[in-house]
């Protein structure tokens, strides 16, 4: 914190990995003022990578991936409330419950969200999931426990590929629909993408590349696509 004031009020919007580590770093570097973390989810900071791995394999509960802290924070936590706006003139964060949180300095660490299915009614079908939060991971794991006839994974990026892998490991039939020429092409390029395709098919994934899913079908419950 060279040359920066060590007191005053810092508000961090986003109470997951980034918010947590930023708060720890501030204290480590000598910030002694007021620290507030605002998080949309009700859970304290938790680790997301296990949600598509050991949680879907049924080895760890979705509620048990809390992150360790590196030090005491002496921070105020406002969890389970979404930040809905920012007043940069008056320097206030506006919350969904109507509260306003004043700050001297602000860190926005809200992260990303899973891209929702473009047709909300279809995306709301029972059995259709995105995977980003521990709540979604818990529900998805429960659905996998019930032994679905077939799982369709739309998108063969890292998350989709890991979900497909967990399904195969659980002995579930899985079809992966990927728009691109191979899995993981965006992240790893064509050569490794082709290798990933081979790996998935060797393990029994029904992989379909160059395919775009246009609609989900069902009546309350998902039945096809």
């Amino acid at each position, binding site marked *: 914190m060279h040359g920066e004031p060590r007191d005053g009020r810092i508000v961090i919007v986003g*109470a997951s990995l980034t918010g*947590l580590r930023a708060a720890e770093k501030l204290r480590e570097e000598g910030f002694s003022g007021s620290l507030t*973390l605002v998080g949309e989810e*009700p*859970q*304290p*900071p938790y*680790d997301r*990578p*296990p949600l598509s*791995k*050991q949680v879907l*394999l049924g*080895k*760890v509960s979705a509620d*048990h*991936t*809390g*992150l*360790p*802290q*590196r030090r005491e*924070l002496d921070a105020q*936590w406002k*969890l389970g409330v979404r930040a809905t706006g920012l007043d940069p003139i008056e320097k206030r964060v506006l919350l969904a419950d109507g509260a306003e949180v004043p700050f001297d300095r602000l860190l926005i660490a809200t992260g990303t969200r899973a891209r929702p299915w473009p047709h909300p009614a279809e995306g709301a079908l029972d059995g259709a999931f995105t995977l980003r939060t521990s709540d979604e991971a818990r529900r998805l794991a429960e659905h996998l426990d019930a032994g679905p006839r077939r799982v369709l994974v739309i998108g063969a990026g890292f998350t989709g590929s890991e979900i497909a892998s967990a399904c195969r490991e659980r002995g579930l039939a899985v079809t992966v629909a990927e728009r691109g020429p191979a899995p993981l092409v965006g992240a790893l390029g064509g050569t490794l993408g082709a290798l990933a395709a081979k790996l998935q098919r060797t393990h029994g994934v029904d992989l379909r590349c160059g395919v775009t899913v246009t609609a989900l079908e069902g009546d309350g419950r998902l039945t096809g696509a």
Partner: protein
Amino acid sequence: MNVVVDLNRCQGYAQCAFLAPEVFMMHGEESLLYHPVVPDGQLEQVRRAAVACPVQAIVMGEEAGAGAR
């Protein structure tokens, strides 16, 4: 107590799986699975695993924001 592994750093040396097999387990040939919540009887084993990791990929500590629920 909770534990997290930086999977970008992890190279599969598996010292953790050797020292604390109830918490860390190799999955296939290269990847690591672990239990983020450390069982009470495994604290010392996990501490040793964290020290022994050649790439220092393991962080152990009190559950963050535990008082915040």
